């Protein structure tokens, strides 16, 4: 078996687990998994790749929606398949009996444990409102091709 140039798959999983620090190491609260949250943003907002941290600017407001969003259920640790590392929340994100009257179309996933509330990713789903009803964001299949976070 010959040597082969590659980025190690285990490294990708380690990134999701916060093991490596090429820069100045951050101070973590502990060795447990961080808490992640999902916040909803108005369609007139501009969250995206340049969004470094959670902000209340352009976050939705309405009955039964709490600013900073909902906590993500994280019962399944990152894993790998083939050369891809992946992670997916282990339950849907839900808001019950909410009224979000101004159109929104984006979810910001961010680290709520980190002091800076650092961003992870933004997901869009088409502009909409909710009236005295429920919003459910059902997570994709947790695998290397559809997981919510995939390091390929």
């Amino acid at each position: 078996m010959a040597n082969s140039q590659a980025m190690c798959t285990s490294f990708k999983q380690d990134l999701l687990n916060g093991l490596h620090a090429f820069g100045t190491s951050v101070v973590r609260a502990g060795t447990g998994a961080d808490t992640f949250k999902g916040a909803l943003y108005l369609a007139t907002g501009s969250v995206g790749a340049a969004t470094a941290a959670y902000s209340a600017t352009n976050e939705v407001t309405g009955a039964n929606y709490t600013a900073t969003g909902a906590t993500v259920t994280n019962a399944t640790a990152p894993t790998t398949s083939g050369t891809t590392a992946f992670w997916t929340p282990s339950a849907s994100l839900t808001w019950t009996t909410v009224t979000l009257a101004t159109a929104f179309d984006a979810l910001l996933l961010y680290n709520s444990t980190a002091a800076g509330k650092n961003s992870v990713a933004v997901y869009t789903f088409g502009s909409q409102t909710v009236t005295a009803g429920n919003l459910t964001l059902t997570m994709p299949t947790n695998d290397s091709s559809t997981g919510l976070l995939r390091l390929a």
Partner: protein
Amino acid sequence: MALSSEDEPLIYTTLGNIPVSGLDYSTYWEITDDTIKFTEVYKQDEEIVKSSSHIYFLKPTPDLNLFQGEF
């Protein structure tokens, strides 16, 4: 046991709890490459008094591609 009129199912709306039978109910789907969205709408006299959405992420993008440099 038969239901009396007082047992008519109610549903929570912007107008409070009202009989579901008095509302117009409609649904629609939006399907894209990334999501499937199912929306339910209840109307009374053309006014939306309740709506819910259920969104399924099919294959969220973007994924992160890591590139290995060479020397």
